[in-house]
């Protein structure tokens, strides 16, 4: 199970990668996709939508379950991974790479401070 050290994590099993341009790439973790099973559909927000940290931005569906997706940070949605429409399995195959879900131009990069490190997130997954 992968817990890339260069990422930040939320308690709801999302990861964040902040680029130099202030744009955060967001997806769900390897642990999350494993729990959900085969992802069959990802519902994403519209480009231009404003999100607050903790707000739901969409839904990940597997055959028998549905999981709300929570934005770890606040900002405007600048891009959505349209490849997921035809190939939702990218989330299973490459959750930290091609399976990314949305990109947000962060309002306040300091928000990353309140997210979990790779080590802390890994501990969290071992608890339940």
């Amino acid at each position, binding site marked *: 199970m992968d817990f890339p050290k260069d990422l930040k994590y939320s308690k709801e099993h999302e990861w964040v990668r902040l680029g130099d341009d202030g744009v955060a790439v967001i997806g769900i973790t390897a642990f999350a996709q494993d729990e959900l*099973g*085969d992802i*069959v*559909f990802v519902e994403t927000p519209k480009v231009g939508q404003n999100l607050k940290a903790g707000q739901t931005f969409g839904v990940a*569906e*597997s*055959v*028998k379950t549905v999981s709300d997706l929570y934005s770890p940070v606040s900002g405007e949605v600048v891009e959505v991974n349209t490849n997921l429409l035809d*190939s*939702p*399995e990218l989330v299973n195959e490459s959750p930290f790479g091609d399976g990314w879900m949305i990109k947000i131009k962060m309002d306040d990069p300091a928000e990353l401070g309140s997210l979990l490190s790779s080590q802390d997130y890994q501990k969290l997954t071992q608890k339940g």
Partner: protein
Amino acid sequence: MSSQSQQGLNFTEDEIFGRGSPGRGGYTPPESGLPAIDPQSALPIGALRKDLAGFPNLTEPEVTRHYTRMSQWNFAVDLNFYPLGSCTMKYNPRINEAVARISGFSTLHPLAPDNQAQGTLEVIYNLERWLCAISGMDAATLQPAAGAHGEFTGLLMIRAALTARGNPRKKVLLPDSAHGTNPASTVYCGYEAVTLPSGPDGRIDMAQLDRLMDDQTAALMVTNPNTLGIFETDILEVSKLVHDRGGFLYCDGANLNAFLGKARFGDMGVDVAHINLHKTFSTPHGGGGPGAGPVVVKQELEPYLPFPLVEQTGGGDYRLEYDRPMSVGRVHGFFGNTGVLLRAAAYTLSMGPEGLAQVAEAAVINANYIRARLEGHYHIPYPGHCMHELVITDKIQNEYGVTTLDIAKALIDRGFHPPTIYFPSIARGAMMIEPTETESLETLDQFCDAMIEIAGEARANPESLKAAPVCTVRARLDEATAARRPQLRCSMCG
């Protein structure tokens, strides 16, 4: 020829679209002796369809073979044990089918004048009274076409009654073990669905109920026995609390088979309930319907029943009353699934008071018999006797990497339909087993023997269960691809 014997009496059969050849047809319309009308002159040309591409051209024998072969791919109650929990897969008496097909019933147009529909109106009127007697309630509507439809109708009536009292309120309480239709019906009535966590014994937790039942809660929706197969022993205290706080008690009647003739909703403080005729009253499940979900109510809710109602005039005739100013409205185009109502009425008359009381006893004995035989082999999360159904889980088998899904598929190979799986979700890996009263002890023994054998395989040879089912026309189906790239129709057609 594209359809052929696969092996002996096991047949493959292709889809019907595009098959046959022009000149073949399975139906001959009657001779009318009327002049033909040219559609191009009678109807707007732009509205005419060009053709029915992909529709078949087959004769009656070919069509008959097609569907007969397809039917053989199905498991059914008439073949073997079908213990789907909360579905009450009891035997469907054939006399019910004969009754529903009496031509005086089947040829009656829904808009025929009342005085020519006295027979059907009599049956509807009587079935309402019988369901009221059975459930201890005062009035009924037979319009809802399924349990969920009944839930929606019942909740509408609760809302109407509360509105008449001055405040419709905002929320409905639902146990965490509730069937998914319960919360879905709740939001259709403009209410918020609030979850009531169950106690450690699987029953309603009175402390939680006390905490959550407030003056903005319109109703508590219970299922009794609940979806774990356990009777809500505190039901009288529950109803008192709900009523004291100005709310209504709704009972989902899916599990009525547990106490027919032994107890009645009305005596438990229930204000409104639906009954699933395709469960408790033996009408066939049909692959997913048609069913019927009549709603029975206490007198206070009678004015809100959907219109029209069947009333009896002074002279003993029946008539349809449409002038019901406080009615919640119409939930069905006509009067509900009348053919299903006829079957349920036939069943009620077939069984009579003694027969129905025996139903519950046998159903509960059968479920407890299975419980006793499976004890030790499977994890049973809630101790003590169950009612007409029981919940077991895959906890023991998990140790060997075997899941409820594997056990279900392994049962198929041994000739049984699996129980309901993964519901209710408060019991992880649940298998809900409801035998019903129409099964013999021999059948229950065969089922338990198979379950025990599977438990043994789980220990000794778990991999063998992962491939199951292997004896069916199709192996496990790729549900992920079906949901990712849905193919929901044949594109050749239309």
